[in-house]
């Protein structure tokens, strides 16, 4: 139960080179790959099966009403937030708590900006145009995948905010442990970013 009893909670295992948390987050990301992989497969399956013409044909370009500029902006925001996440970790690694924390705050703000653009401009615009998940299979998959992705972003923001706020106490107790946790959060964050980098082209551009 207590940290000192369990081996490798902070220090890496000599063979695997990973501490438990990092190993765990990699495994978790593997399952996330399968989750989003299944949804991407669904996208492919439905798109391949869609007829050329008719009411259930796959919408192209303008028919999707998706603004690639907004999507592109969001892509940039997320990539930037990934960079600041890495910078935060580097600062913690260099024992520079104040700077690291500022980078964490920037990451959280960027993430919130992403969600705001997603909800305020994209979803709201579409609801205004009477486009809902049930409108067509394309929008069903659009809302499901971006929605699930947004939930992941929000989850990430909550974790980052935790480490900015109450979680920061750990820094006083065990700096390495805290930095490790930031590293794990970072891994998750890069994954979420990566999912968006796949989502953006298949929904907005293709």
């Amino acid at each position, binding site marked *: 139960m207590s940290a000192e009893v*369990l081996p490798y909670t902070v220090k890496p295992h000599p063979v695997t080179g990973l501490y438990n948390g990092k190993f*765990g987050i990699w495994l978790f990301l593997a399952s996330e790959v*399968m989750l989003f992989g*299944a*949804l991407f497969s669904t996208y492919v399956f439905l798109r391949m099966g869609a007829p050329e013409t008719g009411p259930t044909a796959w919408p192209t370009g303008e028919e999707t009403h998706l603004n690639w500029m907004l999507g592109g902006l969001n892509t940039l925001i997320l990539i930037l937030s990934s960079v600041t996440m890495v910078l935060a970790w580097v600062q913690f690694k260099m024992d520079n708590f104040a700077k690291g924390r500022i980078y964490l705050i920037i990451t959280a703000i960027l993430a919130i900006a992403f969600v705001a653009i997603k909800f305020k401009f994209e979803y709201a615009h579409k609801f205004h145009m009477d486009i809902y998940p049930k409108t067509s299979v394309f929008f*069903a998959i659009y809302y499901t995948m971006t929605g699930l992705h947004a939930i992941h972003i929000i989850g990430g923001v909550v974790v980052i905010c935790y480490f900015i706020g109450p979680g920061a106490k750990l820094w006083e107790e065990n700096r390495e442990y805290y930095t490790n946790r930031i590293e794990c959060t970072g891994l998750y964050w890069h994954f979420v970013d990566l999912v968006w980098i796949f989502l953006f082209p298949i929904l907005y551009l293709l």
Partner: protein
Amino acid sequence: MSGDHHHEPGFIRKYVFSVDHKVIGVQYGVTALCFLFLGFSLMMLMRWQLAYPGEEMPFIGNIFGEDAMPGGVMLPEFYNSLGAMHGTIMIFLGVVPLLVGAFGNYVMPLQIGAPDMAFPKLNMASYWVYLLGGIVMLCSFFVPGGAANSGWTSYPPLSNIATTGQTWWLFGMVCLITSSLLGSVNFIVTIIQLRVEGLTMFRLPYFVWAQLITSFLLLLAFPPLEAAGVLQLMDRLAGTSFFMPEGLVVSGVVQTQMSGGGSPLLWQHLFWFLAHPEVYVLILPAMGIVAEIIANNTRKPLWGYRAMIYSTIFLGFMSFIVWAHHMFMTGMGTKISAFFATTTMIISIPSVVILTALVISLYQGAIRFTVPMLFALAFLPMFAIGGLTGLPLGLPASDIHLHDTYYVIGHFHYVVAPGTIFAIFAGIYHWYPKVTGRTLNNALGYMHFFLSFVFINMVFMPMFWQGMAGVSRRLYDQTVYAHGDAVQSLTIMSSWGAWMLGLAQIPFIINFFISAVAGKKVSNNPWDATTLEWLAPSPPPHGNFETVPVVYRGPYEYSVPGASEDFHPQHVTTEA
């Protein structure tokens, strides 16, 4: 995890919201046994309708209410609910939590010499999310329209147009999947990172290997079902058409409220991508338990230990590319079916290797017929029958006649019921002394075994003949068909077997509770076993071992020539 305060935690922290893997293991075990019994009871109700269709159920017919059983006669909607929930409860709430949550949690850290799981809080969360999923499933019986009634496979469009119970089912499944994911991450990290000094991968007990592969299957196979569950929830709640083609007419009403453009087959692909690895989740830990018990009771090393491990790994890989053999009848062409039939034939080979290794392990042993050994031995022929009858189902041509008949039910129940569940019983009889410090009563144990063995065969053996006769599964009343009516006597025999099997569990239930307080007290290593869990005190204290053990040899060093005793534990320093 930061606390190094050594004060004793209170009752709630110690036994309810405990982070100790042993307490969580017992919580999982007891909860899952309750669900197992519930799932079995649902089946006993169904068996009445099957044996005596449309007749009033004696004694208890009137307690289920007018919506389920007016006048004591079971309605088809209730029958279908029972069928769907029997499958769901047995697999996701009974067997998997027992094998992985209970045995895996309790035994695996002990076998690798770890003080606890790698992430104890995650472990606790896993149990509580599982319990929440179970409660959601139970509550669904009381919503209007009853519990989910589209089968445990929940094929859309049927499940999309089904009653609210289906939504509850989906929420319950999302909880259970989350629980399994948390558990599997924890298991893999624990097995890889927390092994004690000297315990190399090829000195691990086979049970730990089985848990490792199982965890990988859970980790990678469950997310697609979670995705499918999300899509079906969208279909049901947001009106999307992921699984609905256009132009459907349900009950004479044109379905104009949905866009169409989806595919019912999409669900089947996502579902079976989970559910075939799930089959191996059900069987691998069971094989692990059986291997432990066979090695211990033959007093002889397992034959082909490495071959078994390689087979298990291969089985794990292959299980991801056989899923479509559940879908031969969906209009599949020759090329795809040839691929999946071939992978299916290939996957049978590692199973044969494992089974052969276990049987050859008996050769030149000194077999002790203890209660756990009897269950483990019975596992072998029962699993063999289950495995062999998989052949005609795995070949598309013979599957034409046998697909979706009772033959399928007989096949997978032989694998799971007298197979896996017997292995679970074996495990309970084997590790009970470790958990409680007392043994289960032998006489009741033998009674439990022999009665269960006879009646479980009486339940499932007739199903092969029913299937041959072409009787479809999931029929509320098979006598409406001439070919079903002709084999109705088999159904009745099967039903009586099921009820008797229910009675046969009474010795076990009595034994389980009485022995916990009144059983014979035993030493730490009552079975003269070699693996690490028997080094720990019974029951093991918090932190498991008094001193951290070091491992010097493989897991099954029994009857080493020249030794004074016929077992040589892994942690003993001296050479024999």
